[in-house]
């Protein structure tokens, strides 16, 4: 008996430091699993939230997988996961077919990224469009080195690609020679390693490993996205099949609570609920 009390005391002691009386307390005493899949832009926030919840209550298991927005919608629609994330609004046909319920919780920008060694400091929208269409093929045409441009784009299921194509490329052509990578993380790795690369990622994924040029005179960032100066933005959605219930509901509520908003901000997204 003493032993058990000792172990319990230890658990309370070690987890105690992270326990804040607050919104996360709803998870206390609950048990179960939440499976999450989909949009890769969502992953950092999802991971942090999941860790927080699992720290407060180790009986709850939360799994997080990527796959892209398409996968998120498809998997939640077919009942394979509890929450399907997407970086685009699910299409009408998808909402109807699966009976999806959407929860937009953050605003996110998508912006062009370059390798750190690239001299180019600013680009205009029309230059970006021409680069992606394959009309501009050398960096020297946009005030860079005399090197060929290596274009990177995302796969067809990507919500990031969707918003970039609509709002930055103005629904223009993406050249067939563009390399295709399958997540925000893979895009960052590719651009980081290729001195002549141009790619695009979610603002939440930007760090000092890559370089963000000024676009039409605006530095893409969380601030300029909030103020409306930077226009290539989208909402991040978490989708459920029908009304969420039980722990899934708690999870989404927590994400959109005061504490959740802080986590969202921490990862450079803009929480929608705090506005």
């Amino acid at each position: 008996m003493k032993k058990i009390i000792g172990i319990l005391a230890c658990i309370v002691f070690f987890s105690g430091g992270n326990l804040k009386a607050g919104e996360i307390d709803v998870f206390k005493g609950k048990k179960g699993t939440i499976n999450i899949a989909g949009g890769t832009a969502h992953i950092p926030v999802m991971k942090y939230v999941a860790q927080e919840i699992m720290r407060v209550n180790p009986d709850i298991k939360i799994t997080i997988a990527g796959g892209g927005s398409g996968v998120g919608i498809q998997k939640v629609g077919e009942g394979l996961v509890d929450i399907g994330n997407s970086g685009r609004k699910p299409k009408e046909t998808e909402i109807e077919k699966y009976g999806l319920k959407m929860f937009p919780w953050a605003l996110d920008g998508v912006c062009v990224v370059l390798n750190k060694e690239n001299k180019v400091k600013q680009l205009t929208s029309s230059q970006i469009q021409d680069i992606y269409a394959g009309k501009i093929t050398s960096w020297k045409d946009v005030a860079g080195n005399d090197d060929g441009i290596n274009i990177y784009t995302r796969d067809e299921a990507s919500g990031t690609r969707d918003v970039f194509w609509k709002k930055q490329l103005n629904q223009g052509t993406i050249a067939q020679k563009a390399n295709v990578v399958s997540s925000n993380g893979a895009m960052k790795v590719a651009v980081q390693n290729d001195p002549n690369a141009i790619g695009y990622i979610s603002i939440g994924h930007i760090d000092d490993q890559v370089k963000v040029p000024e676009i039409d005179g605006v530095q893409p960032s969380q601030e300029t996205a909030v103020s409306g100066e930077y226009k290539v933005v989208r909402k991040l959605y978490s989708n459920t099949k029908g009304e969420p219930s039980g722990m899934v509901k708690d999870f989404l509520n927590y994400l959109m609570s005061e504490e959740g908003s802080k986590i969202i901000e921490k990862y450079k997204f803009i929480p929608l609920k705090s506005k």
Partner: protein
Amino acid sequence: MNKKTLTENIFKLSGLFTVFLSLFILLFLFYFSLPLFKPDNFFSLLSFKWQPEENFYGILPMMLASIYISILATLISFGLSFGIAGLLIRNDLPKIKKILEIIIKFMTSIPTVIYGFIAIFLLVPLIRKIFVQGSGFCLFTAAIVLSVLILPTMVLLMGDTFRQVPKKYREAAVSLGFNKFQEFLYVVVPLSSYGIFNAFILGLGRASGDTLIALMLAGNAPQNPAHFFDAVRTLTAHIALVLASDTQSVAFKSIFASGLILFLFMFVISAMSYFLIEKRKIRQ
């Protein structure tokens, strides 16, 4: 029922099960690609342009890329495995032989993703620097790594056929004054020609079926490859990339056609190797 017939029946049943499974896969693929065989769709699939945003859904570039990559990888690997397998039947170099055998057997157990992952950080920048063409994610890079992947399969298969050459032939050759190289080239190789070809075919099958390496290293650009250093997208990578898109779209449907083509391609390859083995049996 005695034990022997029971085991026999179990084997027969599992054999039949496998046959039906493959048949069902074929039927399933065929059924789902049926809507694509309407004239309109069919010709849009058989084009060189894949730009889903503009309603171009051609998968010919992917077909070509699959064929180029697998053939190039098999050719590279074929040369290497031929030499290694030849070395492995020599009895006068026990140490090298032992080490090689251990390495080759170990290679069969390395997951493909490890090859891909390491190549992204080591081989891709190297190719980019040496050839100064594009991003380094290209047909050539993927083919090199694929050739490493299929190497053990080919070495083990070729080694087996080399070893099956009756000892008396080799001894006869030695007694006639052949040196090691002549013995290998004029006795062992001609007698194992079918096995060598078989290894080639199986290597080709394995190379064309691999997804991850092409997905990670070939660049996935849906373009018609003009040279070795172009980024390309194989059929397998295409399926992996498009699988996640909206299930109602034409893009999504194109993966069934890709699957069907791959299936038929593999079927032809396996059929070829099967008939070759049969032929060899008859000759013996």
